[in-house]
């Protein structure tokens, strides 16, 4: 892999997402949400009846569930569900060759840094433009090995026998209000199946974008990795800036069969008006491993608690999380570890940085039920406060039954020491550069967990965020 070429290929910064194209959507379900919207989506997508039923049931659940404001921020009440467009697309089928991709979409990808040459480095690229995948490509050798990498519409249509079994099972519709919303209006997202024993060498990658005002994006991702197989999936997001709030509410389900490994990497950099309310959860069977590597830099409010249900003996779950909250942002992130079998182990490492009036929150759940043996959990949360009006919260909940387990949780809050800054300034760095360097040092051991190109991108994003945070 050529480093500089990859870097150039995937570099995403906030400014790159700061542009808008004329809207000319062929299919548009209008504003607001009703059974009609769902019928419309189902017809456009040509979906089977069971999916339409599934959507309608979910709509019912969504309408019944209250916003969880008894524990979450009241900011959720500012989401105007009736002002959101729940579906629009170019009405296009995912294209297989670069030439078929429309020009303005291409331009977007160009600005995002997903040019043609990326195909050389990545096993498959599926970039989502609004609701439908506009571009999707898998290297032939992966196809030969039987790896399926398609969007959700195609997955349910072409491979119902594979995906129906797990669809909506890891995260049931009624899990929370926003998973119900997603279940009602989902479109886009990736469906991946890796057959037994296949180890996908290159990370599979998808970029998501929001490009219409008041448009919520509801992608649905389901990744099934069969026995002994391995895959790494990466998603990165940027969104153009708009005046009114946008809603992004995804559902991501992972299934790791016996001895399988899944690594799911996210770099989230939505613009500061996006509500990012995402439900992510994986089931790990015997001796399987699921790792969530999660980085939240953008959005107005992110609520995301990746979870792992360790269902088989010796299953492992891990969440590595970095959150950066700047003025006007609230990063409410965390992890959920459900131990449901003997000798399962989980690890949560979370680092958050609050800049200006930003607020970062860690919310965690560790659950070890009765009659299990040898479960272990380790949780570490570190928070860094940059300015005097920055805010950070930690709300873990640890529930352990029985005497054959070990759990530990630790959290600390600190700030960049003045001596450190002084030391660096003395050696010719500006205060801002010094602060940036300090913050990068704080998250450095986690950033190393990311693939190389992402970690470089992350560093750049942190530098951008730290600009103007001092002085």
């Amino acid at each position, binding site marked *: 892999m050529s480093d500089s070429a990859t870097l150039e290929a995937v570099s995403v910064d906030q400014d790159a997402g700061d542009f808008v194209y004329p809207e000319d959507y062929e299919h548009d379900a209008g504003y607001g949400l009703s059974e009609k919207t769902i019928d419309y989506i189902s017809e456009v997508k040509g979906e089977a009846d069971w999916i339409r039923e599934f959507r309608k049931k979910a709509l019912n659940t969504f309408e019944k569930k209250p916003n969880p404001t008894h524990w979450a921020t009241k900011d959720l009440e500012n989401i105007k569900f009736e002002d959101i467009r729940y579906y629009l697309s170019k009405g296009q089928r995912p294209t297989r060759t670069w030439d078929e991709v429309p020009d303005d979409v291409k331009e977007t990808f160009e600005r995002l840094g997903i040019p043609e040459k990326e195909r050389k480095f990545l096993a498959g690229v599926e970039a989502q433009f609004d609701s439908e995948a506009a571009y999707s490509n898998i290297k032939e050798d992966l196809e030969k090995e039987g790896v399926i990498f398609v969007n959700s519409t195609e997955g349910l249509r072409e491979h119902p026998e594979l995906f129906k079994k797990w669809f909506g099972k890891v995260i049931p519709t009624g899990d929370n209000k926003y998973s119900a919303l997603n279940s009602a209006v989902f479109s886009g997202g990736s469906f991946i199946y890796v057959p037994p024993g296949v180890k996908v060498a290159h990370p599979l990658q998808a970029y998501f974008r929001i490009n219409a005002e008041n448009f919520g994006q509801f992608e649905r991702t389901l990744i099934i990795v069969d026995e002994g197989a391995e895959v790494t999936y990466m998603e990165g997001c940027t969104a153009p800036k708009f005046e009114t709030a946008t809603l992004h509410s995804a559902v991501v389900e992972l299934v790791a069969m016996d001895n399988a490994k899944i690594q799911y990497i996210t770099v989230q950099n939505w613009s500061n008006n996006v509500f990012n309310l995402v439900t992510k959860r994986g089931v790990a069977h015997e001796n399987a491993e699921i790792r969530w590597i999660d980085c939240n830099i953008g959005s107005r409010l992110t609520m995301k608690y990746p979870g792992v249900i360790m269902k088989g003996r010796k299953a492992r779950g891990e969440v590595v999380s970095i959150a950066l909250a700047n003025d006007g942002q609230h990063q409410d992130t965390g992890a959920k570890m459900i131990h449901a079998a003997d000798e399962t182990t989980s690890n949560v490492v979370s680092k958050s940085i609050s800049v200006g009036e930003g607020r970062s929150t860690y919310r965690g759940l560790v659950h070890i039920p009765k009659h299990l043996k040898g479960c272990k959990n380790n949780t570490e949360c570190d928070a860094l406060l940059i300015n005097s009006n920055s805010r950070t919260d930690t709300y873990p909940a640890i*529930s352990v039954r029985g005497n054959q*387990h070990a759990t*530990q949780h*630790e959290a600390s809050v600190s700030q960049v020491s003045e001596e450190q800054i002084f030391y660096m300034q003395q050696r010719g760095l500006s205060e801002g550069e010094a602060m940036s360097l300090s913050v990068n040092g704080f998250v450095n051991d986690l950033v190393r967990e990311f693939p190389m190109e992402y970690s470089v991108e992350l560093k750049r994003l942190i530098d951008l965020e730290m600009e103007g945070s001092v002085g």
Partner: protein
Amino acid sequence: MSTETTTNTAWLSSPPVKGDQQDMPEWYTAFQAASWERFQSLPVPSRSDEAWRYADLKKSRFETLQPAQSATAPSVEPAAFGEACARFVYVNGEASVAEVGDLPAGVVCQPIDQAIASGDERLKAYFDVEAKRLGDEKFAALNGAASIYGLYVYVPKGVELSGSISVQHYITGDSAPVFPRTLVVAEDNARVSIVETYESVDSDEPGLSIGVADFHADRGSQIQHVLVQNLNEHSKQVHLATSRSGRDSNVQTVVLNLGGAWVRNESLNYMLDSGADTQIFGANLANSHQEFDQRTLQVHDAQHTTSDLLIKNALYDTSRVIFGGLIQVRPGAHHTDSYQSCRNLLGSDQAEVNAMPGLEIDADQVKCSHGATSGQISDDEIFYLRSRGIPADDARRIVSCGFLNEALSKVTGSDLRDWLEGLIAKKFDQVS
């Protein structure tokens, strides 16, 4: 939820007030009436209430509550923690012993109902200033509406009381609730220590105590409050404590839970001026079906304030322990140093621990950390002790006692510590 509310607000049709209540000043009867109204309007704790997360709500419901009747005093041994400068014994809320020794001039140490009736203006200023609770608003209101009893202590400027004030509460009779209230005011540089114990007269009568305690520590003062709950295995207790510490003052609260079927402790602690320091220590030894539910709050409202919380739980059989703690550093409370730690030792496969240590930080230049752990005695530790000739059962007991005693290691007063450790050791005899 609405049906739940209506059925459960109907625990009581009239306030739990005794017929022979003495003449009270108008402000107090008004407070009682307002509390009763508040009690009636407040909903009972419900599933969706974060302050009751993990709690067994059935245990916090009461079918009927009739105020405890007068009872003949049992023979009571003084609590053996060393020298006491005053001693009170209450049986079902009535004082059977009130011995106040030779206290320094200006110190007030008397039953709180008498103090109110006597028209003590200072008491009025400090009475029930706390409005916030951690989910137990309804219980606090019920306490306010009930016939009051308990202790009022006022220590004037510069007076240091030697020895502790001992208050022993006894409950007897079937399902009889008592509503104690403790109010402690320490003026500048004063020092006072209070030790309260709760016990049942009979071993199989379910009793109930719903208590409120308020501590006000002025500049440079020191208040120590020790609460030992050793009711019988059918009894329940709700205890809501609040401390407010001023400049350079120190408040130390200690809770030891040994008995009871269901116990809910709330501890709200406010550090209001620079140099204020609060220590919150708890040791809980739970076995059988016991449930201990502890919620704490450490509020840092000024610069250079410190607090330290250490709660240790040892659990056996099917017992449950819940810890919900929160450190709040308010805007501007820079240079706060705050610690919160909850450690759990699980001694059976059926025991359950729920820990929710929380932090809310709104200032920078702070040092805050919290930790929660759970685990069991390691085989290595047992092996080590056995290899030195100690039988396995004794080894387990030694390690468990040592584990709990650590929570008491910073308690001021070695006699007090020895006494508390002795109580823990005694309970362990029932455990294994």
